[in-house]
């Protein structure tokens, strides 16, 4: 400002305009920086809002839905397994009876044509019943189509949860390794070993037998 006054007092028009331009440029860049800062804050606030909305949707609706869907998977698989076991329970006595009667007849020197004919009719009936049960067993496996679709849906949701968690960690500057480190070293019940996921898992019974033998069992 002093420079401007001096240029004005000395009637130096060129110097006055040069200094005025400088002042305007400084003011302009300061305003630009403010605009950039405000828009960055606005962007962050919008991101947080979007993330908050996603978290609210996940926690309030999607996750309870997913748990319900997985309960349904458990229920469907349980039902199919029992249905299959029921059909086996109905088939085993038929197979046993046929085998037993065949063995009796083979050892019976008095077995006549009538007895054999009766056995053949009985064996045919039993085989047809077992065949029908096997068809039912086959149809009971249809649960896999339904459960597969439900599990794929839940899988997709878990991917979304992972993305939200990643975004949340980025906002708070939490590196992934820190979270992973808190889990390492703990013995916990993992359930069935999953290829490519479970660490330090023994999948073959022979490996377990070796391990147990090494422990004196």
């Amino acid at each position: 400002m002093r420079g401007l006054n001096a240029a004005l007092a000395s009637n130096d028009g060129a110097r006055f305009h040069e200094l005025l331009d400088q002042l305007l440029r400084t003011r302009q860049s300061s305003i630009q920086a403010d605009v950039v800062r405000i828009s960055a804050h606005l962007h962050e606030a919008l991101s947080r809002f979007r993330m908050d909305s996603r978290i609210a949707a996940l926690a309030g609706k999607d996750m309870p839905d997913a748990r319900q869907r997985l309960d349904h998977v458990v229920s469907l698989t349980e039902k199919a397994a029992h249905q299959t076991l029921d059909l086996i329970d109905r088939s085993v006595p038929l197979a046993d009876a046929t085998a037993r009667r065949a063995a009796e007849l083979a050892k019976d020197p008095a077995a006549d044509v009538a007895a054999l004919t009766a056995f053949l009719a009985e064996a045919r009936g039993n085989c047809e019943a077992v065949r029908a049960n096997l068809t039912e067993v086959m149809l009971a496996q249809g649960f896999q189509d339904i459960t597969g679709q439900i599990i794929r849906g839940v899988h997709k949701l878990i991917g979304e949860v992972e993305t939200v968690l990643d975004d949340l960690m980025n906002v708070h500057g939490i590196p992934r390794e820190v979270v992973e480190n808190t889990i390492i070293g703990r013995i916990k019940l993992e359930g069935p070993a999953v290829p490519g996921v479970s660490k330090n898992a023994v999948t073959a019974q022979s490996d377990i037998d070796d391990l147990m033998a090494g422990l004196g069992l």
Partner: protein
Amino acid sequence: MSTGLRFLVVDDFSTMRRIVKNFLNDLGYNNVQEADDGNTALPILKTGGIDFLITDWNMPGMPGLDLLKAVRGDPALAKLPVLLLTAEAKREQIVEAAQAGVNGYVVKPFTAQTLKEKIEKILSTRTAAA
């Protein structure tokens, strides 16, 4: 083969209890009771009369390892043969179960042959020790 042995099968999934029970029946063991976790199994065991315990590990309520420890900690049950039939398959877990006094460890999914072998191995060891 002694078929008068009384088994207790503990698993939270009714299908698995049914599979093991049916299989034991096939092997000639017709006296099989069921429980869905350690909490329901222990009173049955304490009542007496069970000769062989087959238990899952991962169950809500009392898990199989806690049940095993409770069995080994009870003088009346301490020598009961216990077979873990579980999907848990980490080395540390197998070692932990062995240290807790398990007699056999079968990982799910299992074959009929494996289960038969383990049961017979445990029973033959007990007979030899008796």
